């Protein structure tokens, strides 16, 4: 590897770290999510009724992966980027106490918040939240049946690594159901380069 190659690699690594730090800092700085306005765009009244009001305040997803995941009682579900815990709690209700729901979030404080919401929802007995990164998931190989996520993969500066990690923790025959944003055309540079557009 030439000096120039190493320099490009070092710059890319710095860029990845910068994005990760920016995303973590942005999520750490907010005092709530999008609230009911966002939640009502994504979830039905019946789904919202399954959630504590404080959890609904932390709606930050972009879709409703639970509706498409067809979770079954007894399954183990991992929610990558669980935030305030909305999708983890809905997943926990569907897999029931014979299964388990695990929320993964980069922020310890978000894990604590989601844990409080899970307790209020009555699913804490089979739900846990772990602090960690989607590019280095702190779970054993082939340990979950289903991975869900909601508006989180687009935040990763190392998406291929995150996808490889999701693949690693899924058991053979397991499945993913991810809500996310895609882009059909490039954003104007003034928007694309704004740190908040990397976190939102």
């Amino acid at each position, binding site marked *: 590897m030439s000096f120039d190659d190493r320099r490009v690699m070092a710059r890319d690594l710095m860029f990845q770290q910068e994005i990760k730090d920016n995303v973590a800092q942005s999520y750490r700085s907010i005092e709530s999510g999008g609230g009911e306005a966002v939640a009502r765009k994504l979830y039905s009244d019946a789904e919202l009724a399954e959630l504590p009001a404080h959890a609904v305040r932390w709606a930050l997803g972009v879709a409703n992966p639970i509706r498409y995941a067809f979770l079954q009682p007894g399954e183990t579900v991992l929610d990558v980027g669980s935030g305030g815990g909305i999708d983890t709690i809905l997943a926990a209700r569907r897999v029931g106490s014979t299964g388990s729901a695990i929320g993964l979030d980069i922020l310890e404080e978000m894990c604590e918040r989601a844990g409080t919401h899970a307790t209020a929802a009555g699913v804490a007995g089979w739900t846990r939240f772990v602090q960690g990164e989607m590019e280095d998931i702190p779970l054993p190989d082939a340990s979950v049946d289903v991975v869900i996520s909601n508006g989180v993969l687009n935040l990763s500066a190392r998406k291929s690594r995150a996808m490889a990690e999701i693949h690693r923790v899924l058991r053979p025959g397991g499945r*993913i159901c*991810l809500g996310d944003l895609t882009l059909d055309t490039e954003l104007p540079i003034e928007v694309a380069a704004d740190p908040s557009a990397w976190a939102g």
Partner: protein
Amino acid sequence: MSGALAERVFADKLERAGFTNVWVGGHRPFGVAEASMYPLFTAEVIEAMRRTIPQERQSHVATAVIVKASRP
């Protein structure tokens, strides 16, 4: 949003990671008005979106999707 992939690139990356039966559906436009509902977008970047994105695209800046796949 800046890190979002094109739908085909998203699906290709999943296949390269070893997933099969990749399915993308549940398409829903995500526009400037919806972005403004999230506290993660600053007022400055929302204003930049309104100023720099053509009017006809403001209601569909990105697309919210559901991506499903399985591990063989």
